[in-house]
């Protein structure tokens, strides 16, 4: 039966070399017995079309051969949860590390072909490469685990040796009924936090990033900002870095779902520092003249008005921020008291 021989030959090509002959011999014996039964039933040999239908029902050679192979995975169900966790962490940290590196390196290296935007546009490629490497490592681990299961006891033990006491607390909705922060939200906050710091660091050398087209107008004006703004600026930078560091640590510890209220209050309290620094400035001098000796007579009155307005504005902002802080602290204390009473 030529068609059966061709079929078995095709199946054989997909079988593992060591078991080919044995499997094909058995398959041939079974199929020939079946064929004999069919022919005895019909009282004649099968026609070409009937044989084709029979073989088609049996399945394509590749599918039939595959069923003789052990079940295979690139990453099996035992390793997959670990893989998925590592992939998410690796991608999040790769994005963070890349944004930080870009924020530091690009402003330092003044190269005409190296722009911050161009560098940040490479993030998808960085994420893709990270995912590819993590996947490749886990595929290798899966292969090793399949062939030498005794070599990977820590991974095998990870599933069985977990501690129920170390489980995170039940997710609570926030006081206003909202869901706690999602993983994507936490990652986005950190990534954008680094972008903001990078952007802030670029502002002194590139004021147009903050002022836009108004920068050209300001260049023509007789006024300039006093040195206190730089002091406040560095306070803002350090506060942002501090917040980012804290959020990153929380993220690393897996405590990103709902930031602690104390942390929120602390950030708000630190946020008052640059305002207080500004309010302490001597003679309320926030704006000065580029050339005081020549320009004071003409612009001195306007300058005093500007400085008074800025000082008043800063006082209002500080007052609002302080009230907010006190209000939040009061709410926190009341909630803590109510919880203790329960």
């Amino acid at each position, binding site marked *: 039966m030529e068609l059966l021989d061709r079929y078995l030959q095709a199946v054989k090509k997909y079988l593992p070399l060591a078991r080919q002959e044995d499997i094909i*011999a058995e*398959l041939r014996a*079974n199929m020939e*017995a079946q064929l004999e039964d069919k022919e005895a039933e019909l009282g004649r040999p099968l026609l070409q079309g009937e044989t084709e239908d029979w073989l088609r029902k049996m*399945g394509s050679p590749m599918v*039939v051969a595959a*069923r*003789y192979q052990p079940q295979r995975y690139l990453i099996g169900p035992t390793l997959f949860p670990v893989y998925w966790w590592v992939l998410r962490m690796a991608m999040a940290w790769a994005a963070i590390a890349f944004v930080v590196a870009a924020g530091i390196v690009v402003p330092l290296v003044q190269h005409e072909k190296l722009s911050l935007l161009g560098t940040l546009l490479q993030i998808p490629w960085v994420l893709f490469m990270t995912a590819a490497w993590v996947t490749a490592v886990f595929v290798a681990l899966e292969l090793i685990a399949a062939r030498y299961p005794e070599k990977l006891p820590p991974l095998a033990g990870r599933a069985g040796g977990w501690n129920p006491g170390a489980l995170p607390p039940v997710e609570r909705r926030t006081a206003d009924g909202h869901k706690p922060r999602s993983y994507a939200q936490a990652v986005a906050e950190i990534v954008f936090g680094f972008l903001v710091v990078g952007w802030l660091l670029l502002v002194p050398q590139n004021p147009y990033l903050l002022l836009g087209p108004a920068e050209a107008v300001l260049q023509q004006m007789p006024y300039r900002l006093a040195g206190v703004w730089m002091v406040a600026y560095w306070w803002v930078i350090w506060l942002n870095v501090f917040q980012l560091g804290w959020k990153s640590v929380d993220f690393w510890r897996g405590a990103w779902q709902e930031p602690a209220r104390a942390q929120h209050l602390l950030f708000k309290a630190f946020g008052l520092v640059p305002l207080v620094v500004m309010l302490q400035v001597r003679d309320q001098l926030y704006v000065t003249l580029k050339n005081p000796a020549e320009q004071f007579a003409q612009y001195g009155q306007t300058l005093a008005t500007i400085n008074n307005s800025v000082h008043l504005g800063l006082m209002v902002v500080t007052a609002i921020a302080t009230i907010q802080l006190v209000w939040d602290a009061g709410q926190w204390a009341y909630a803590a008291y109510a919880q203790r009473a329960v």
Partner: protein
Amino acid sequence: MTVAENLFENLKLELRRGCLTLAALVALRSEHYGYTLRKDLAERGLEIEESTLYPLLRRLETQGLLVSEWREEEKRNKRFYRLSPDGEQTLAQLLAEWQRINASINGILGDGILDRSERE
């Protein structure tokens, strides 16, 4: 195939997978080669595709539940399978589990029928 039909086919496949192994083990308390085993099961109402049954026999043999030998029958060499001593032990455990599940399902079905008749 509709989504519901596809879902049914997948669930049926999952349900049958374990049952087919059990049926093959039960049938192999007496010796068979692949084709006669398939015929035997089909005659008893359990149709199995060749491409499913023959690899299953190999797998059960690798797991030590079956033993096999090549022997000539009707002028043709065939591989005959039967239950191994380990297979007999495992089969007894599996049958006990099968009876337990069967009794539970019947019990649940009985409760369901009672609930419905009570409602009516």
